[in-house]
């Protein structure tokens, strides 16, 4: 344990949100551990011009941020509310041109992040050739495989987010974060310049000293700020902690179908002090 690391522990989700600058390229994790509380804090602080990278797809969180006017660009393999339907604010913003869409395919997002993780300028990827996804992305390049014979292959530029944000079960006072089965959070954290993390709770032992927890722990080296946020993924799920609140997600999907419904939902669920939020 050391003196500086404890400086990583911030007093609230809103303090954490204040660290994420307008215009930042922000990577959002899609699986268990979506930082919904931090997303609501970004809406409260009226973040603007964010460049979202969904890893690799997204749902309620990017839809919320887009609807609230926080987003200029969304780089994604897909945004959907899954069994609750299409993502209404995402779709409205793409159709109106309010956000710039950069369509990708799931492994292309991972590959771009892994290139950044490895400090290489690009990563090759199979597939994509002949698709309009490739045609729409001037930043994807097709080269001749230098080890092949007339073998075109797509090269994807590294995606280096300014920050990655995610929610995890716990962190220790040195800033190490337990990510459980979500191994891909390490890719986000390695690829991004900074990582801002919310956790269910802070634990009083060093996670890396526990042989069973250490393999699923992100080293504090990659972490720039942590805030305790019990229920921080709600109304989405966090395995072993809470399940989806399907009523709340359904209510969001219904409200967000119209601009006014979305504004009313924001007023009721986001633009209220921390702790009272849905």
């Amino acid at each position, binding site marked *: 344990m050391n003196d500086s690391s404890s400086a990583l522990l911030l007093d609230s989700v809103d303090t954490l949100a204040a660290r994420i600058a307008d215009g930042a390229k922000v990577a959002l994790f899609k699986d268990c551990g979506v930082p919904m509380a931090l997303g609501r804090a970004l809406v409260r602080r009226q973040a603007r011009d964010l460049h979202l990278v969904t890893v690799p*797809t997204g749902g309620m969180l990017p839809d919320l941020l887009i609807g609230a006017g926080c987003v200029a660009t969304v780089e994604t393999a897909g*945004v*959907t509310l899954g069994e609750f339907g299409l993502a209404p604010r995402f779709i409205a913003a*793409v159709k109106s041109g309010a956000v710039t869409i950069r369509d*990708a*395919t799931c492994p292309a997002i*991972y590959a771009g992040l892994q290139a950044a993780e490895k400090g290489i300028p690009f990563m090759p990827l199979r*597939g994509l*050739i002949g*698709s309009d996804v490739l045609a729409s992305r001037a930043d994807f390049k097709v080269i001749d495989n230098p080890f092949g014979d007339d073998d075109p292959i797509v090269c994807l530029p590294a995606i280096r987010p300014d920050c990655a944000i995610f929610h995890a079960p716990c962190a220790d006072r040195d800033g190490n974060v337990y990510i459980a089965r979500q191994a891909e959070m390490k890719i986000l954290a390695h690829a991004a310049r900074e990582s801002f993390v919310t956790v269910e709770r802070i634990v009083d032992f060093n996670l890396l000293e526990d042989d069973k927890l250490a393999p699923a722990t992100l080293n504090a080296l990659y972490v720039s700020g942590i805030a305790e946020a019990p229920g921080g993924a709600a109304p989405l799920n966090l395995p072993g902690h809470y399940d989806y609140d399907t009523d709340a997600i359904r209510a969001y999907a219904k409200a967000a179908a119209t601009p006014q419904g979305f504004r009313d939902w924001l007023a009721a669920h986001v633009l209220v002090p921390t702790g009272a939020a849905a």
Partner: protein
Amino acid sequence: MASYTSEELLIATIADMLQPARHIAVGVLSPIPGSAALLARARSGNTKKVSIIGSMEEPYRTDGGVDLFDCAAQGRIDAFFLSGGQIDGQANINLTGIGDYPRQDVRWSGAFGSAYLYFLVPRVILFREEHSRRVFVPKVDFISAPGTSAPNVYRPGGPHALVTGLCVFLFERARGRFRLASVHPGHSVEEVRDETGFDFDCPDQVPTTRTPDDATLGLVREQVAPAIASPYPAFARRVWPQAVA
């Protein structure tokens, strides 16, 4: 012979196509393909592996997206499923939207993993229950993933079949065209022609899709129904109200 539902017919039809596969992966929002994969697994004495994206249950859980996509590229996934808001006669699929890109008139979610897995998984089964000219178009507005590729493009995978609420098409890769393989009981070749916007090959005699036998229905109701209820509870309750508590 026992009666069966339309879902059970589709599940059995798709499961037959999965017989050679050792490892079957299933994407999100795919209860019928997922059930078919579980049926194929049950028929194999549980020697097949089935990975269901988003499932939290062993043995269906994956190690995450990166692992799944890498696994496909290693040649360790034999079958996968895709769908489309539009699908055309060259097996191009559109999951992105309709109209001029990027500010399209209709926008869907996005390509997801299609632009990659369609190239790499040997046996991709296209599944779309709605069989209409709205879906099956002459040419998709946006190719999220192409059905065919030039000969020099690395492509061990691609479309094997298209299963709909009316029929089964098999895709002939060398010709780049669908061929009508069977029509489901109660439907006709004419109905398929009327509802399909793309041109396809059609033999003189088109068989009726084989209906599920008692052994199959037994496996579906006793083993598949309770297993698919974990990732798809609403689906399982609707289709098998007795079997799923």
